[in-house]
């Protein structure tokens, strides 16, 4: 996993474009979605054979949601796990309408919860 290099890791142009959904998105519900791009650790299988490298924003819709997400860079996981590392069983409770920005290559959403996962590249 790569080290994050700060504010210039991703371009502002890229972030704003994707945050507005201009590059498409996935609706995630009751799934452990693993991106199939370059950041996927060896041995993992991409969900549905997708070619997405990472999601750049997660937006909770419809109802509140239990969400856990693995960042593509060290130490940025969205998780309540001790040590701050994605473990697949330590979701964060997010309120309907919340947006979490990042670059996440694995996102787990509880059943009957809905999240818009905006596609990065």
């Amino acid at each position: 996993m790569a080290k994050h290099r700060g504010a210039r890791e991703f371009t502002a142009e890229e972030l704003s474009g994707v945050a507005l959904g201009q590059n498409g998105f996935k609706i995630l519900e009751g799934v452990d979605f693993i991106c199939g791009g370059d950041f996927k650790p060896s041995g993992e299988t991409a969900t549905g054979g997708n070619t997405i490298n990472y999601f750049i924003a997660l937006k909770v819709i419809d109802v509140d949601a239990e969400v856990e997400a693995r960042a593509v860079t060290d130490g940025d996981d969205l998780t309540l796990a001790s040590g701050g590392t994605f473990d697949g069983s330590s979701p964060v409770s997010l309120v309907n309408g919340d947006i979490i920005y990042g670059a996440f290559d694995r996102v787990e959403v509880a059943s009957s919860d809905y999240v818009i996962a905006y596609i990065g590249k």
Partner: protein
Amino acid sequence: MSIRRVPVANAAIDYSQAGFIIGITLGAGSYTGHAKGFDGTGSQNFLEFLFGVECSGATSADNTTGTKFFPDIPYATSIFTMSRNSIGLPMSAGIQCKNAKIEGVTTFGYTANQDNIARSGIYDPDDGTNHIFIDYSDEIFGRFSRVALAKPVLTSDRHYIRITKGIDWIRSCK
């Protein structure tokens, strides 16, 4: 396809400089579809907006109470909800959106993976259990070629949304 080819300035979307449409459904209202709408002719429990090629040649002259055509706009870029109930309290609005495919970008599969705004992932506004409910004052961004606004269950309630227009079809081709 790269994100750098996004044809609309993001600030323009944010501030609705591209224009917008207000959609309203009343719980006590009745909505009749057009033959080119999702449900065809007849009564329906939603108001549908069609953009660009989805209009299949229809224009605003063909509008009905349940189907509105915007052939000059290829897609909408955001849905902002501002519904209130009969006593003025904020409430969520049920919507469904069909995603506009981004032309020429299937090679890398980024946008080929995009979904519709719907619980099932399939645009089907005729199915009331398929609506996604968006909170008052929340906004959903994307590229939507069809937008459906559900009719409220209670006759005294009203659903309001603001749909932000995407690029101008004619000017974008020049």
